[in-house]
């Protein structure tokens, strides 16, 4: 904090009031409600609710579909994170290396950041569409009868591709600025000490990028868990039946469409716990990164 601060009895509260009011009403109230209703069973016709203890949790955790969705969520998250990070890193390293046209490439590779996930989803669905999608013909060449929305694997494939495509720009922006923050003198020292460009990348550039990469790792996991909702919703077109969905999508399906408030809340709380752990990681890391500078 600052060496010198104002001291006033009322002013700081006045400045905080608007933000606090909104947070209390729209964050704490619903969060507490989620936790509370995760211990209750809501009557489907709206006639009150009964306290059921941890039943909602055990129901959720024991159901086979939840396990399957959780497994898919993990695989999906890992794939999206790994693929979008590595492609973005490749492009960032190359964009950093070229002398001519670097800023043009930068613009071309980052602008997709601005496209909303469901819009990206709609575009993707059209590319994989069974009537008009060009991807089908490519797939047919290798004997792959691609059926989005009908075949579990094919749908998952489309989801991953679209999610990765949408996330590359974000990672690219961070990797590139991370690369450009490496002092010129350090690169020159590296060039003197190490002949092989590839080795230099592994032994000098990559370790220096590690803080950025770690930060992105967490962000990408959060992205894959939550922000891909729009993509998934568009791809499954409200017919989740045999299609892969993620845990967040199930929270929405069960709670909002299925009316199972208790079960959905229990799932929310489980997810809260996952994000909580991820964010604690991230916080600890940001603290560390401050020390680097």
């Amino acid at each position, binding site marked *: 904090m600052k060496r*010198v601060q104002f001291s006033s009895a009322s002013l700081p509260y006045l400045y905080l009031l608007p933000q606090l009011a909104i947070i209390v009403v*729209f964050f704490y109230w619903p969060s507490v409600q989620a936790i509370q209703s995760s211990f209750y069973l809501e009557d489907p016709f709206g006639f009150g609710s009964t306290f059921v203890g941890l039943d909602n949790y055990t129901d959720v955790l024991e159901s086979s579909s939840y396990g399957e969705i959780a497994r898919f969520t993990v695989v999906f998250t890992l794939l999206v994170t790994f693929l979008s990070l590595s492609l973005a890193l490749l492009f960032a390293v*190359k964009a950093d290396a070229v002398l001519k046209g670097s800023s043009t490439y930068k613009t*071309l590779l980052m602008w997709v950041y601005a496209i909303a996930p469901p819009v990206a989803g709609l575009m993707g669905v059209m590319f994989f569409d069974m009537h008009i999608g060009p991807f089908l013909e490519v797939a047919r060449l290798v004997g792959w009868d691609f059926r989005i929305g009908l075949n579990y694997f094919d749908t998952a494939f489309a989801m991953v591709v679209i999610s990765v495509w949408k996330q590359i720009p974000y990672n690219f922006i961070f990797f590139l600025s991370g690369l450009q923050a490496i002092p010129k003198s350090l690169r020159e020292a590296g060039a003197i000490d190490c002949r092989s460009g590839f080795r230099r990348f592994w032994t000098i550039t990559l370790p220096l990028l590690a803080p950025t990469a770690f930060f992105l790792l967490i962000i990408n996991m959060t992205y894959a868990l939550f922000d891909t909702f729009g993509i998934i919703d568009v791809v499954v077109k409200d017919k989740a039946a045999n299609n892969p969905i993620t845990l967040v999508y199930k929270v929405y399906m069960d709670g909002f469409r299925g009316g199972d408030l208790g079960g959905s809340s229990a799932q929310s709380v489980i997810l809260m716990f996952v994000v909580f752990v991820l964010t604690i990681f991230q916080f600890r890391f940001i603290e560390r990164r401050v020390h680097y500078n």
Partner: protein
Amino acid sequence: MYRTRLSDHLILILGSFMMIGPVAVIFLTSTHDAVEVHRHGLMATWGGHFTDTYRKVLFESGGFTGQATGLRMLMNSMILGIGFAVGKIVLSMMAAYAIVYFRFRMGTFFFWVIFTTLLLPLEVRIVPSYEVVQKLGMLNTYSGMIVPLLASATGTFYFRQFFKSVPDELLEAARIDGAGPWKFFIDILVPISKTMIAAIFIIMFVYGWNQYLWPMMMTSDEVYFTLVRGIKQILLVWVGSQIPDYNEAFALAVLAMLPPVIVVVVFQSWFIKGLTESDK
């Protein structure tokens, strides 16, 4: 030193193509008529129906939605994007100012009250949030769409980081110059935060504009539909139609991405600075 190789350019060109290609195809396809698209698939050529399609999407109601025209949805998206960005900046600047520049007893406590919100994204508490908004009678209103999204600390976190980087001496000089808390905020802190405000405005505008799940739950009345929310409607209409209006759907998608893309490309350097220097 490192010499640029041809393969570097090849990879970058391939990457750029990967990013632009799909969007270009979608745009080009939107200029063909629906029957043609249905028969031949996605197009990589100019179709000549650009004005027809876009005029229809923008000004005529009753395509995918009953009453909302594209223009109406565009306006709603603008209201959501700008309203969210402005609200976020005002709230979070004030909160960050109190946290960084004031010494008060509950300071640390409120800091944690606000920053805990970083732990839980809206998606995990979406159902109870909906219920709260319903209880408050805010369904199908602009404020119901915007205000609950403001309940997070992202902006406050950005500004807190930035304020902490402002040299202490600036406040000290201003105090010796006779500036009180409000004068210092308005005369000094807000003007020197200009670039930061612009950067956050862009990030938040894009974030607000691109909201999908929340507006979808909040608004059943088409008068409040945003463009991104409209995407959902396209899909609902498609289920069960013989020849879907691909061209109009794509035109709507193009409209939905255009404003945020323009903002991000035009104000690229601010945007990148804001994004990377504040650590989210």
